[in-house]
């Protein structure tokens, strides 16, 4: 590989990395803003003061739980109303965001 080709490749790769990073960032920001809905009732610091913590859950389990509240399979009028108002895409974004908070709240 010549020096110039190496530079071109490096630039191309970093552009790919940058745009992927921006994708993650945008999704993370969307997730954080959706999680603002949850924060009206759930403490997002992992504490349970009478309403269960929702950080530290497995992403799929969280998405499945929301789907169950949405369909009414699982009862709970507040969660039913919230889940019904969110699209499946929003639920997926939210679940990914909340699950990602697990790593940050785990002791290192």
């Amino acid at each position: 590989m010549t020096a110039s080709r190496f530079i071109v490749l490096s630039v191309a790769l970093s552009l790919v990395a940058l745009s992927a990073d921006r994708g993650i960032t945008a999704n993370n920001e969307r997730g954080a803003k959706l999680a603002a809905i949850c924060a009206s009732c759930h403490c997002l610091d992992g504490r349970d003061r009478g309403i269960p913590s929702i950080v530290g859950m497995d992403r799929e389990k969280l998405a499945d739980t929301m789907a169950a509240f949405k369909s009414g399979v699982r009862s709970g009028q507040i969660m039913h109303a919230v889940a019904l108002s969110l699209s499946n895409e929003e639920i997926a974004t939210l679940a990914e965001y909340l699950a990602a908070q697990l790593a940050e709240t785990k002791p290192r």
Partner: protein
Amino acid sequence: MRWTRRRFGSFAGASCLAVLQARAARSQTKARVVVIGGGIGGATVAKYLAASAPKLDVTLVEPNPRYTTCFFSNLYLAGLRSLKSLTHDYETLARSYGINIIHNAAAAIDPVAKIVTLTGGTKLAYDRAVVAPGIAFKYGAIEGYDEAATQIIPHAWNAGPQTELLRKQLESMEDGGVFVIVAPPEPFRCPPGPYERASLVAYYFKQFKPRAKILILDAKDTFFEQDLFQDAWGRYYPGMIEWLPGQFTGGIKSVDVKTRAVKTAGETFNANVANIIPPQMAGELVQRAGLADQSGWCPIDPITFESTLQPGVHVVGDAISAGDMPKSAFASNSQAKVCAFAIEAALTGSEQPAPHLFNTCFTFLAPNDAVSDAMSFKPMGGSIKINDIFISQVGESAEMRRQVAHQADGWYAAFIHDVFG
């Protein structure tokens, strides 16, 4: 995790940091947002703006050093909670979120020059202003009930000294006395509130003044969750609470403050303790700032909560015409988040998420018997329309109601954490 300004800003990682730094370098000064009113709506807007957009300079103007929530204050009247447990300060918002807190009142807003003037004379320039003044009372709507009268007959519809005064009067009332609650016409803050108050004061009377009576003189013919309340009154406090609808009273006309005599169109009722919850309008500042229309409330764009009368000024909470949304702390908090993300989008170019609006009220019928409702809303045709509504039902098991009461306590703790940090 704590949703602090540092964390919100750092989630992006190193490469994004570079982008942020480049953007920061481009803008010489930070865009400024001035939030007026440190109740639930104002504090939530300030917190979410500071957390989500650290590039913004956020100032919160609030005269009082602490805020006492009116929601859950009926538990204080019943002797079930201290007023201290309902009182919160702004220290975390200042310390962890970097919000400039100014304990002063806003005297005027100039929407053309974009300047807020405080009563102390300080001028604050803004790129966007948010006004969250809550409610004001229409004194004089009931003849004889003015601001001075509240020191003898409390409204207790803003929590704090008024709530303490009402509790003291209830404590010193003789057994066999009559407690009169005057319930307001629509629209008013906290639709289940007057009736929860009757329920929880009845709980107190049942223990300490079992011959006492509660009389609700209503301006309305029906009220929110009426079947749930009347079922509970029959089960827990039989014969103690009487509710007289507007069609019976003909409306509440006047009050003689000295004798605590409340006069309706047809009859005069003598109270030993009275609580007058007057008709309401948006807080005083919005009337002066040209943010309210003829209804006395503030028209807004339901997607951004920007005033339709004064561009660049947003209004959230009890002061707005919110279509189907009730005037409640939960609704204010929900509106405030949508408003914060809209302002962030306008000032930083970030993507504004689709607005999601909700309301939930937890209402106590007795200490271990609470009910709740859940509503979702959508902006539609310039207003806010209800999408779904789910409400507790008469006949639910005692265990279910006990669980809702437990959830209510958990909700209060989480909600306060969400608003005040």
